[in-house]
C-alpha cells in the first residue's frame, strides 16, 4: 500500500487510528490492532512476502533464548541471498526483493543483538514484538527503529497529546508535498536526460544529476515525513532520518545527516565492533590504517545493503574512500576551507556518487561523468524542451535545502504565514494525487 495514495491516507490510516485509540487503556488490544494493521498493510505485497515477514518475526520470538545467534545468522543470510538474487545483481537471475526486507530484517537483527548485549529487555509478548516488526509506518522503508525506543511507546498512552497530533499532521502535509510536488515531477522531468545519456552534453548531464539528487532527497525524506506523521497520529515518536544533508560541511557530516538511522545502525553493529576487533590486533601506531580499512569495509557493506549490483558496491567503495580520506585530512589539520566552499565541495562529491546510484551500468556512469566534465559538448540532450524550468527548479531547491525551511514549516508554535503555506501545499498535493509512483527506496 502506498503511503501517498488515497487508500492509505483516507481509509487505512484514519481507520487504524480510530481502532487504536478506541482500544486505549487496553495495551494488549492496542498491540493487536497494530499487528493486524501491519499485516493488512503489508498483505498488498503478496502472500509469500507476508508469510516471510511473519516467519521472520516468529523465528525471532522463538529464538529469543537458545537459538538467538542462529536466528540472527539466518536472517542476515536470507537478506544477503535476496540481495544476490535481486534485480541488477551481479549476474544472477533476478528475483523480486520482498517489500521492506532490508528494513524489517535490520530491525529484528538489532532487537536480537540488543537483547544479547542486555541493552534492552526481550519483548514480553509476541504481540509486542509483532507490533515492532510489522509497524506499518516503517515496515516498508524505515526509519530503522530500536526496540528499546519503541517499547516504551507501546500501549503507554491513553490519549494523543495536541503537540504530537500537530507534529503528525504537519509531517504528513510536508511529506506529501515533497513527494507529489517535488520528487515525482522532478523525476519525470529528468528521465529523458538519463534515457538519452549517450547523447547528452555537460549542461544536460549536470541538470540530470542535480535533478536526481533533489528527487532522491525529496522522495526519501518525503516518505520519512509521512512515516513520522503516521506514527505520531498513533502516539509514536520516530527518530529523524534526515537533517539537511545537502548543507553538510564535509562528507562525514553528510553521513551524519543522510539516512541517519541506517548510518547509526551500521555504526553500532558493524563499524564499532569491527574497529575494536582490528585495533586490538594491531599496532597502536597503525590506527589510521585501521580506521581507513573499517570505513571502507563498512561503506561497501552499506552499498551491498542497497543491492548486490556493481553500482551499489562501487558507490559504497567511493564513499568509504571519501570518508577515509576526510578522516586523514582532518587528523592532519592541514587544510582550512571556508564553510561555503566546504559545503559546495561536499555536495559535489555527493553528486558524483549519485551518478553511480542512478546508473545501471558502468558504461552509463562513465559516460555521464565524461559529459559532466564537458568531454561531449555542452548539449542538453533530451532535457532541451524543459531546461529553463528545470534549471529554475534546481536553483530553488538548492536554496531550500540549504536553509532551515523544512524545520521551520513543521516547528511548533504560532504559524501565521506558515499556515497559509502549509494549506497551499496540502491543496496542491491533494490535487496531484491519483497516480502514485513508488517511493525510490522501496526497491531496497
Amino acid at each position, binding site marked *: 500500500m502506498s503511503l501517498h495514495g488515497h487508500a492509505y491516507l483516507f481509509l487505512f490510516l484514519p481507520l487504524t487510528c480510530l481502532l487504536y485509540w478506541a482500544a486505549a487503556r487496553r495495551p494488549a488490544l492496542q498491540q493487536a490492532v497494530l499487528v493486524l494493521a501491519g499485516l493488512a498493510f503489508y498483505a498488498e505485497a503478496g502472500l509469500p512476502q507476508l508469510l516471510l515477514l511473519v516467519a521472520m518475526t516468529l523465528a525471532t520470538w522463538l529464538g529469543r533464548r537458545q537459538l538467538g545467534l542462529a536466528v540472527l545468522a539466518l536472517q542476515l543470510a536470507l537478506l544477503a541471498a535476496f540481495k544476490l538474487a535481486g534485480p541488477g545483481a551481479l549476474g544472477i537471475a533476478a528475483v523480486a526483493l520482498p517489500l521492506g526486507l532490508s528494513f524489517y530484517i535490520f530491525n529484528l537483527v538489532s532487537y536480537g543483538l540488543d537483547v544479547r*548485549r542486555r541493552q534492552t529487555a526481550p519483548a514480553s509478548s509476541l504481540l509486542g514484538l509483532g507490533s515492532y516488526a510489522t509497524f506499518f509506518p516503517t515496515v516498508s522503508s524505515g526509519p530503522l527503529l530500536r526496540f528499546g525506543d519503541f517499547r516504551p511507546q507501546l500501549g503507554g498512552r491513553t490519549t494523543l497529546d495536541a503537540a504530537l497530533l500537530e507534529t503528525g499532521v504537519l509531517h504528513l502535509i510536508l511529506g506529501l508535498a515533497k513527494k507529489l510536488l517535488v520528487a515525482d515531477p522532478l523525476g519525470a522531468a529528468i528521465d529523458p536526460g538519463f534515457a538519452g545519456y549517450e547523447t547528452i552534453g555537460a549542461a544536460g548531464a549536470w541538470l540530470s544529476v542535480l535533478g536526481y539528487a533533489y528527487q532522491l532527497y525529496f522522495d526519501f525524506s518525503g516518505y520519512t515525513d509521512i512515516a513520522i506523521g503516521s506514527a505520531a497520529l498513533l502516539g509514536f515518536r520516530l527518530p529523524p532520518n534526515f537533517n539537511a544533508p545537502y548543507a553538510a560541511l564535509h562528507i*562525514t557530516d553528510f553521513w551524519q545527516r543522510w539516512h541517519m538511522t541506517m548510518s547509526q545502525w551500521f555504526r553500532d553493529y558493524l*563499524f*564499532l565492533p569491527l*574497529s*575494536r576487533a582490528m585495533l586490538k590486533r594491531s599496532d597502536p601506531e597503525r590506527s589510521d590504517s585501521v*580506521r581507513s580499512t573499517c570505513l571502507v569495509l563498512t561503506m561497501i557493506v552499506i552499498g551491498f545493503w542497497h543491492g548486490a549490483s556493481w553500482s551499489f558496491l562501487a558507490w559504497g567503495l567511493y564513499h568509504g574512500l571519501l570518508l577515509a580520506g576526510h578522516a586523514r585530512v582532518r587528523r592532519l589539520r592541514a587544510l582550512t576551507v571556508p564553510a561555503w566552499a566546504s559545503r559546495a565541495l561536499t555536495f559535489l562529491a555527493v553528486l558524483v556518487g549519485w551518478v553511480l546510484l542512478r546508473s545501471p551500468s558502468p558504461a552509463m556512469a562513465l559516460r555521464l561523468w565524461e559529459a559532466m566534465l564537458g568531454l561531449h559538448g555542452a548539449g542538453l540532450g533530451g532535457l532541451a524542451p524543459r531546461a529553463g524550468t528545470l534549471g529554475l527548479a534546481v536553483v530553488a531547491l538548492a536554496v531550500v535545502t540549504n536553509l532551515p525551511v523544512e524545520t521551520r514549516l513543521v516547528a511548533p508554535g504560532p504559524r501565521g504565514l506558515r499556515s497559509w503555506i502549509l494549506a497551499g501545499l496540502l491543496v496542491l498535493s491533494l490535487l496531484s494525487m491519483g497516480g502514485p509512483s513508488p517511493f525510490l527506496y522501496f526497491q531496497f
Partner: protein
Amino acid sequence: MDPAAVRETLRAFIAKTLIRDAAYPLGDAEPIITAGLIDSFSLAELAVFVERQWGVDIPDPELTVERMNTLDQIVARVLAG
C-alpha cells in the same frame, strides 16, 4: 585505581592520541564528541586503550555520546570497572 592518576592518564591519551594535540588543554567537563574533537572510531580507540591500561571492558553499547562525551564521564566509567 587512583582516580587522579586515571584522570591524568586519560587526559593525556585523549589529547595526544585522539585529538592529536598533546598540548590541548582538555577540560574535565568539556564535550569532546559533540564539539567534534573526536569521532566514533576514537571511541573504539579509547575503549581498547582502557582495556589494555586497566583491564576494564567498556561494552560497545556504552560508547555513546550520552555516556562518553566528557573526561568526567569517561573517568567515572573506568573507575566503575
